[in-house]
């Protein structure tokens, strides 16, 4: 696989498996692969689609979930945990890798944490609307997200009324979801932003049914950053739609989203130049996400950025499972089942999906993901997976033999093949030296069926490859 293709796949998938590399080649290269990925419904994905039946809490409506929790059948924590597990498994196993990557990106921008004590009954539904729009248009996604009951419950809009407006969502909509603080909006703008959003209620703690309450909508003239409305009607939904549409198409929103995209897919500190270029396409395309991504991957700065991003702990976890070829089986009800315990591994690493307590979403820069805890957490999970020590049930780990070239072979030849499977490239000199140290095997040593490498040393070789800077960056 050439370096440019590897770079693109590293950024728009959760880790290059031999199967993914093959898929890319058979589509005629990475750019064709990306185009193919932009139509996720055309990609067969039976295994990942079936995952939804592995988690019983996924089959209930918000009201049913609440009733089950009231009756003590399971807890809100279980509901949250199942969403996080399902998400991790989809990232590992879905063939719609771009959709998964972009769903994570937008979920982090329009962030509703898991867990959240008020948003949880609606959080799965929220995930579905993000997925629905993740490769579509931002303006539609913004409207769906901001008026969704999960967002309303999380940032208090579901309790905000004409008489008692609550500023929380009105403020974060401006600061985090759209134009950002550079827009220079005033405190009065924040108040009016909240007033426009009044009316979207949720029957919290009862049926959890969302409803629009015209009586709770603030009526009267509003003006925010150049958006004006007489706002005379008690049904404020058209005004809200117009306001959100205005914000989605605001040039500063384009800039902010371009910066987030560039930070996610290019480098921690993208140049103002590339941000401006991406923003222009986002803006002129009418917030078209596919068009924006195409412009991003064609950009010079993207092409020069291979390896510049540090994998977040959960990216490291998912990539580790993918490249190590760990196969999950339907959970048997044990805590040690892969489909259950994968969440505990995420916890050891220091990052569970959506588990960021603040509305600004996870940080996306190496400096936050390079702490001592993070490094030790990653190495610990690499070690567990390399040896197949944990999770222990409803899982299949590759046997040492499955990693081997035709035997006998020299140790450096074995390492080279392992490196190609895990890192999508041949072994570097530094890796060869490290592997020799870790396994106590000489580089030209002959490896046969009964060599200690196959008998008991394979875990050491695997975790050495997983512990490399190459695997922990993308």
């Amino acid at each position, binding site marked *: 696989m050439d370096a440019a293709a590897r770079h693109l796949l590293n950024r728009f998938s959760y880790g290059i498996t031999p199967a993914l590399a093959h898929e890319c080649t058979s589509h005629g290269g990475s750019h064709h692969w990306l185009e193919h990925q932009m139509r996720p419904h055309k990609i067969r994905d039976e295994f990942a689609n079936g995952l939804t039946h592995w988690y019983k809490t996924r089959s209930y409506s918000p009201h049913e979930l609440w009733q089950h929790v009231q009756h003590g059948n399971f807890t809100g924590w279980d509901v949250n945990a199942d969403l996080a597990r399902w998400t991790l498994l989809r990232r590992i196993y879905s063939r719609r890798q771009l959709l998964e990557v972009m769903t994570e990106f937008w979920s982090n921008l329009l962030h509703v944490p898991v867990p959240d004590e008020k948003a949880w009954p609606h959080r799965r539904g929220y995930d579905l609307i993000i997925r629905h729009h993740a490769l579509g248009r931002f303006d539609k996604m913004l409207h769906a997200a901001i008026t969704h009951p999960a967002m309303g419950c999380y940032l208090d809009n579901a309790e905000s009324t004409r008489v008692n407006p609550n*500023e929380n969502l009105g403020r974060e909509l401006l600061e985090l979801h759209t134009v950002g603080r550079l827009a220079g909006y005033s405190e009065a703008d924040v108040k009016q932003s909240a007033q426009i959003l009044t009316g979207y209620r949720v029957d919290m703690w009862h049926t959890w049914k969302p409803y629009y309450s015209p009586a709770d909508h603030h009526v009267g003239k509003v003006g925010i950053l150049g958006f004006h409305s007489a706002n005379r009607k008690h049904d404020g939904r058209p005004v809200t739609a117009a306001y959100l549409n205005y914000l989605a198409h605001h040039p500063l929103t384009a800039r902010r989203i371009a910066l987030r995209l560039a930070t996610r897919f290019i480098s921690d500190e993208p140049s103002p130049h590339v941000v401006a270029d991406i923003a222009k396409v986002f803006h002129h395309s009418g917030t078209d996400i596919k068009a924006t991504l195409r412009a991003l991957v064609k950009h010079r700065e993207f092409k020069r950025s291979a390896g510049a991003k540090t994998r977040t702990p959960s990216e490291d976890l998912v990539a580790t499972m993918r490249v190590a070829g760990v196969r999950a089986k339907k959970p048997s009800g044990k805590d040690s089942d892969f489909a259950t315990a994968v969440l505990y591994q995420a916890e050891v690493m220091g990052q569970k999906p959506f588990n960021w307590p603040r509305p600004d979403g996870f940080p996306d820069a190496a400096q936050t993901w390079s702490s001592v805890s993070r490094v030790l957490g990653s190495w610990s999970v690499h070690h567990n997976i390399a040896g197949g020590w944990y999770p222990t049930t409803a899982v299949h780990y590759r046997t040492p033999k499955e990693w081997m070239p035709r035997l006998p072979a020299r140790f450096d030849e074995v390492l080279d093949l392992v490196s190609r499977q895990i890192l999508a490239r041949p072994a570097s000199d530094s890796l060869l030296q490290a592997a020799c140290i*870790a396994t106590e095997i000489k580089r030209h040593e002959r490896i046969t069926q009964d060599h200690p490498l196959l008998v008991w040393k394979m875990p050491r070789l695997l975790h050495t490859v997983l*512990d490399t800077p190459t695997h922990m960056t993308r």
Partner: protein
Amino acid sequence: MADQVLQGGQGCPECQAASGLERRRFLGLAVAAGVTTWAGVTGTVFREVALAAGGSADNVLIVVSLRGGADGLSLIVPHGDPGYLQARPRIAIPANRLVASNAMFGLHPKMAPLAPMWNQGTFGAVHAVGLPHPNRSHFSAMEEIEDADPGSSERRGWLNRMIGLDHDRRPQQAVQMGASLVPTSLYGPQPVLATTRLKDLQMPGPSDPEGHRRTVRARHQLWDDKHGALGRGARSAMKVVDSLARLAGSTAPPHNGAKYPDGDFGRSLAQTATMLRADVGAEVVTIDYGNWDMHVGLGTMEWGAMLNTVDEFAHGMAAFFKDLGGLASKVTVVTLSEFGRRVEENGDYGLDHGYGNVMLMFGAGVAGGKVHGSWPGLSAGKLIDGDLAVTHDYRSVLSEVLKARFPALNLSRVFPNFKPEHIGSMKSS
């Protein structure tokens, strides 16, 4: 001792209004004797402890970040200001429920476990502090407070600058306890340690000693020459694991019968106490506590988020100082929050984002038992967009703490281009 505290108040002309009230209370309760006793006893015990451990006697600064924007008016309640009750008809705390109150201020009732420290003068507060200009965005206000170097584009927090002024390069000199993310205040070129649990500070790998040694050597081979944040993190990890190995396995219970509340905050404090006892060279510890972003359901004296959040805070802090015992004489705790909250309550028994706030200070060197600062008042004309005004920059408070506890530091390099004002929040030794 009493004179020193009073002089602190007198040294600042604009503090007169507030400190006049304080003075009466202070002399009336005669807590000065308590302060002397505490300092005297702990000083001796500490010297013994330090000698026995063969460790250094460096002072320790602990910064507790009350994330989400804590309502300072609920923590240190200005019940003597008529504006308080007017603005909060439903969520105001009745004056007769307050703890350690004087004519103007009183502590939240759930601060009761900390009342002894207040009365002994090892717990104090500075009110109406904050950023020089209002910033009601959580994220940008946190950045601004923790970067503490406005105008500079260098991404480096004030605590990272602080630990960079000596020759100590060990990551454990500054520790974020209880979270694996490095906060803005610690971020920068000086290596630091961020950890969820001390027991995680073990080198993962094979359990047989030879395999383990080889794994470590292999990791050195892979990482020793790697640039960038992750390379630094990996090298710090290997270094820290070496020097803190004995801590990782420790499961010793808290000392002196201290009982921490359940939850992350209590756990982080307990681990901090364990770490300080082991004297591994930690000089700065940062701990994040709570979700103070109470737009909805801050609540009343019967229910709500504030009751529980303050309760956990007070029990945690009291347990921490009990656990520290003699070591308390080298430990100073200060709280920070990105902003205070709106003076007027909203319709959901909550408070929206505000401006001026309170800073709480505990432990060594604190001129406690009183509320320092200059109270701007809560009448309509005194508020900034409906929020408590700021009469002292928060960096003035931090400067006083650093000056008292780390006198060798060059403060102008910790807070560049900043001239601290005198507040009197620390004892002038």
